[in-house]
């Protein structure tokens, strides 16, 4: 479903600030794979997400989504295939527009936008039944402006908008990191539910090791622009945090220095 081959990216090339962001990244996702990504700050997790979404293009290497080579395709063309939820709850929705208008925008992802009304009656019904799954009572507030919702509600809405058109790839970029623990749990459960329901091929970046272990069928660890550890489907169910810490020490010959990675 998703293939990254030999991806390299250097920021500020030729200046004193030169930084190798991605160093020969190879990653294959089969349909239905749910891969969680962990790694300390600056490991290249977000850069990799931006390569897939098209916000950045690699210096060399190729990106293939659903058997289509998309390496040079601009973000807006590629996003037909990609659902994305950002870390910032404000980033995924339009605040001055209503809930139903936001959903209508997400709904038109796959089609060419024309002069049809964005919110038709049949779409409204669909929006309502989709919102019911969130159990946040948003289905009765279709005409409320999204700016009036709480961070958790907005993130749940973003998640729904990213998934309900069943994109080929779902990218979750630390999408629970900016929420308080109870909201984060709500969003984590919703993520599990929506991914299973729609059988989405998913890539999730997280700082929370427990979350990375609990969710998904595969796990990769990144450091300094490389994928240094890849846990497959068979090994993942028995994985624990101490295992991961030990593996990291083994590979890198140093202790993992991120408290944040532990505490989430």
């Amino acid at each position, binding site marked *: 479903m998703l293939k990254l081959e030999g991806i390299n990216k250097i920021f500020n090339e030729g200046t004193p600030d030169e930084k190798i962001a991605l160093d020969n990244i190879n990653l294959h996702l089969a349909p239905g794979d749910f891969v969680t990504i962990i790694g300390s700050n600056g490991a290249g997790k977000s850069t990799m997400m931006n390569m897939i979404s098209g916000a950045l293009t690699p210096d060399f290497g190729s990106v293939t989504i659903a058997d289509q080579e998309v390496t040079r395709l601009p*973000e807006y063309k590629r996003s037909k295939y990609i659902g994305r939820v950002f870390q910032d709850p404000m980033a995924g929705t339009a605040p001055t527009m209503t809930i139903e208008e936001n959903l209508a925008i997400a709904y038109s992802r796959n089609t060419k936008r*024309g002069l049809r009304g964005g919110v038709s009656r049949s779409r409204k019904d669909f929006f309502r039944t989709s919102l019911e799954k969130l159990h946040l009572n948003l289905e009765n507030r279709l005409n409320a402006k999204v700016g009036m919702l709480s961070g958790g509600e907005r993130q749940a809405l973003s998640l729904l908008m990213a998934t309900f058109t069943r994109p080929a790839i779902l990218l979750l970029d630390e999408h629970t990191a900016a929420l308080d623990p109870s909201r984060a749990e709500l969003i984590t459960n919703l993520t599990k539910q929506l991914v299973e329901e729609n059988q989405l091929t998913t890539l999730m970046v997280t700082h929370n090791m427990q979350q990375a272990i609990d969710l998904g069928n595969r796990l990769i660890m990144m450091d300094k622009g490389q994928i240094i550890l890849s846990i497959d489907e068979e090994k993942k169910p028995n994985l624990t945090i101490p295992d991961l810490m030990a593996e990291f020490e083994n590979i890198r010959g140093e202790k993992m220095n991120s408290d944040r990675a532990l505490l989430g």
Partner: protein
Amino acid sequence: MLFTALFGSVEQGIIYAIMALGVYLTFRVLDFPDLTVDGSFVTGAATAAMMIVLGYHPILATITAIVAGFIAGCMTGLLHTKGKINPLLSGILMMIALYSINLRIMGLTAENAIVRPNIPLLNSDTVFTQFQSFWGNLGIDTALTDFLKNTLGLKTAPSTWGTIIIVLIITLAIKFIADWFLKTEVGLAIRATGDNKRMIRSFSANTDTLIVLGLGLSNALVAFSGALIAQYSKFADVNMGIGMIVIGLASVIIGEAIFGTKTIFRTTLAVVAGAIIYRIIYAVALRIEWLDTGDMKLITAVIVILALVIPQVLEKQREKKRKAKRRIERQHELAQGGNRLA
């Protein structure tokens, strides 16, 4: 006298409302401060006047003016999206470029010159004279005038009601089309572009195209308004657009402050009303003895400044009051709590 003077202001206000709707589309919906308006308003007026003088049908002339405005707006959009020039500067560059272009457009009517600073339309056929010839036969004017003079006892009455009727129909039609458009898929995408570019890009919309389209539509409306003003006042002048953007902004802000922005339907109505109110304020200000026509730009600037500042001051005071009230309530609670303890 005052009634007829205000009547004229309302007529003009309704025409300027089309321009204000264009400004609303860029400033509010797209969140793009577009200064092309000062130029594209004149482009509309110049194009329509030029074609009318050259003998084309006024409706064709007006439609061409709208297209010219659309192109001008798209150019500003391209400067910004493809040329990566800052929004304000893109608009200013286009406005300056249009000044020369407008002189050339009007120059097409001159026999021994390339450029021309103005075109009078005194005896020309305009959309208003055309409508008047149809309207005059209906006899509604005489009936209304009789009513005003005999029943209400007014000494003077407007010479015709035809103009206000036709401009009202045009402006309201545009308002309703704008309401509808902003709820279509493309309209929603344009609104989201002004709201959250990153989000709309992640839902497969090309924000560059949407910005160009939005600016084009906005300036098409502005040019339409310019074309109608030229025909209404029977005159096109290369300087008639100076400060137009501020007038448009004043209309938007006044309207929004008075009528609110709860829904799109209400906001566009507020913008139209704001444009009319602005013209009335203008007319009244001109009747003050010690003010001169030349002072109007200053007055417009002051109106916009007040409209921007006063709501902030009011909000601050309301907040202060709320806080004071809460403090008193809190003290009250504490006092009661103290009593209980005792």
